[in-house]
């Protein structure tokens, strides 16, 4: 069995970014390699100058959801960037930016946070995913 977990991270709101970060961190804790492929709005959220800013929540959050997430943040719940950094320190977590999304959003590699390891195309994503599971968020 190929234990690699590959995550296509498309969404750029803080709730979905954190859902992906938690899945990546859990897999890293289990010793499973993790490959994250950043597309569109997720890639935009990894710009170095705005990675720590508020990226909002998915539309279904509503006001009550917003309040619940804000309360959790105040209570000291880890931010998605903290979860990803901890996952990278612990295990094998590779984060690649989709080259097409880079072009569409006019992002250069030097604009991205150091959490991002490189730029890749879709073929290399599939090759690296191997026979492992692929999640889309």
């Amino acid at each position: 069995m190929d234990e690699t977990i590959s995550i296509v991270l498309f969404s750029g709101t803080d709730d979905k970014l954190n859902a992906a970060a938690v899945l990546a961190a859990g897999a890293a804790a289990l010793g499973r390699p993790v490959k994250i492929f950043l597309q569109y709005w997720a890639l935009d959220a990894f710009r170095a100058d705005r990675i720590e800013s508020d990226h909002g929540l998915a539309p279904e959050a509503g006001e009550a959801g917003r309040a619940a997430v804000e309360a959790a943040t105040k209570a000291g719940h880890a931010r998605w960037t903290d979860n990803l950094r901890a996952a990278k320190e612990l295990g094998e977590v590779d984060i690649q930016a989709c080259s097409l999304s880079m072009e569409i959003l006019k992002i250069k590699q030097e604009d991205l946070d150091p959490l991002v390891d490189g730029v890749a195309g879709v073929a290399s994503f599939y090759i690296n995913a191997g026979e492992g599971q692929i999640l889309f968020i």
Partner: protein
Amino acid sequence: MSNLDIKVKVDASGLSCPMPILKAAQAIKSVQTGELVEIVATDPGSVKDFDAWARSTGNSLVEQDASAGKFRFVLRHK
């Protein structure tokens, strides 16, 4: 409480998923084969997480108990 020879103790109280299991994995990496790590967590999800983590990684869960909303796990590095 038992008289186990604990090498590293980690207090993950107040931390939510996935931090308790991440900290456990970090602590286990820091000790040698056969040595013990103790983790205390308040995240109720940690009970099933530590069980699954131990079965998957081969490190053993040698002791576990719960009291007053705190979950305590003792892990042995394989």
